[in-house]
């Protein structure tokens, strides 16, 4: 009997454990607090293990997100940096093209309006010296450039060609002290010479005869008069910014701000053939008319008063 039991001990064991399992099942259904009690006991053992597993998983998640995943991010960053550089250089060239386009369009408009012919050239260097204000352009005698040809940027007068090499030329700027341009004031129709000053960005108007009593006002436009033999009549030079007191009773100190911005100039137009431009006379505004009438009235009143005064003294 014992030997039989030993032989089939595993079978008996299976039956016994199965029986216990069934009993436990029925017990857990009848008394649900028993499995709950067991669970709470087991939970006390499990909770530290679970906590440490959770912490390990959180740490590994953190490491993954902060370091391993960031490897890809750094790669993406490199790619994006390259793309950014490419886009920046593209943007730079586009901006350059935009500026060039704008400047060339201005020159084109100028040639159409003034009905003049010439050569478009790029400024390749600027003379940094304080005493000589010149530009070097990339066109020379090979391209048909000659000395004393007028140079413009499409808006106003830049200067004239001072020296010509085979492939490059030097432009003497209007603001140079050795430069002088025959000019005409648009409203007052007075003529004179615009000469460069030591103040880099200003021209001085000389030899303007103000004895006729014609008033010169600020903001009046200054144009080429065509009397210097270089610049044809009617090209814009600048605007009067300062009108000084009369010196020697004949000439007045007048400063002109050129319309050309010499510091940013990039493209110029060398005029080879041109015609005089008709200068439109700007109608005086209502305010200036009133001021002039007032001035006249005051003078006549003064004259009458002085006449009466002399008459009274004579009678006395």
């Amino acid at each position, binding site marked *: 009997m014992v030997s039989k039991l030993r032989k089939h001990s595993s079978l008996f064991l299976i039956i016994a454990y*199965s029986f216990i*399992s*069934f009993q436990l*099942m029925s017990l857990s259904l009848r008394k649900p607090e028993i499995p*709950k009690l067991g669970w709470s006991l087991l939970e006390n053992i499990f909770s530290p*293990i*679970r906590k440490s597993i959770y912490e390990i998983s959180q740490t590994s998640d953190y490491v993954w997100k902060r370091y391993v995943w960031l490897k890809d991010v750094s790669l993406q960053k490199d790619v994006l940096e390259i793309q950014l550089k490419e886009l920046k250089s593209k943007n730079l060239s586009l901006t350059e093209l935009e500026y060039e386009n704008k400047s060339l369009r201005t020159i084109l408009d100028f040639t159409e309006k003034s009905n003049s012919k010439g050569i478009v050239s790029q400024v390749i260097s600027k003379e940094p010296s304080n005493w000589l204000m010149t530009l070097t352009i990339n066109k020379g005698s090979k391209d048909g450039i000659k000395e004393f040809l007028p140079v413009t940027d499409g808006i106003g007068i830049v200067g004239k060609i001072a020296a010509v090499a085979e492939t490059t030329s030097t432009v003497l700027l209007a603001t140079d002290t050795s430069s002088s341009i025959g000019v005409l004031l648009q409203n007052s129709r007075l003529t004179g010479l615009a000469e460069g000053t030591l103040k880099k960005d200003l021209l001085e108007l000389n030899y303007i005869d103000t004895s006729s009593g014609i008033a010169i006002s600020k903001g009046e436009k200054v144009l080429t008069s065509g009397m210097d033999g270089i610049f044809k009549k009617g090209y814009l030079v600048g605007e009067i910014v300062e009108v000084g007191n009369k010196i020697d009773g004949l000439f007045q100190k007048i400063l002109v701000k050129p319309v050309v911005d010499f510091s940013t100039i990039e493209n110029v137009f060398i005029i080879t053939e041109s015609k005089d431009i008709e200068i439109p006379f700007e109608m005086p505004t209502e305010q200036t008319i009133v001021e002039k009438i007032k001035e006249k009235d005051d003078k006549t009143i003064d004259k009458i008063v002085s006449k009466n005064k002399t008459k009274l003294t004579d009678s006395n």
Partner: protein
Amino acid sequence: MSKNIIVFVVFSLCLIALESSLSSIIFPSKYFPDLAVILISYISLNYSQNISISASFFLGLIQDLSTGIYLGPNSLGAILSSSCIKSLSKNLFSEQILSTCILIFIASLIKTTSSFILIYFFDRSGDHDFFSILDFIYKAISSSVVGSIVFLFLVKSKKKHRA
């Protein structure tokens, strides 16, 4: 012997804790491999039938206690799967990966199905619609894949140890 029992008890507790903790982090708990089945398979293949049945019963009981609802279904499933592995291993060469994979798959399927049948028959009032045979198959597949990988490592380390 008593030292082995203590080691087994501690290891079983850690295994069940690991299973219940990781099931919510890595996989959906439905398809998480049944680590108890892998351990049962290992014990059944390497120890005598009496020891493997007792160990399986104890392991199943811990699993039951960890759920806190029923006592018995997992322990019964564990006994049946253990005895099944023991009887099948006589006909299969257990050191081959494919055969261990099949053994664990069958053991897992027997354990989950028998547990379900026991719950179904005892607790008629409960809602058992959330159980499906497909879930059992998925669980068995994941258990067999993970189990075979664990077995591969164990076999390799055993060989190294012997050398």
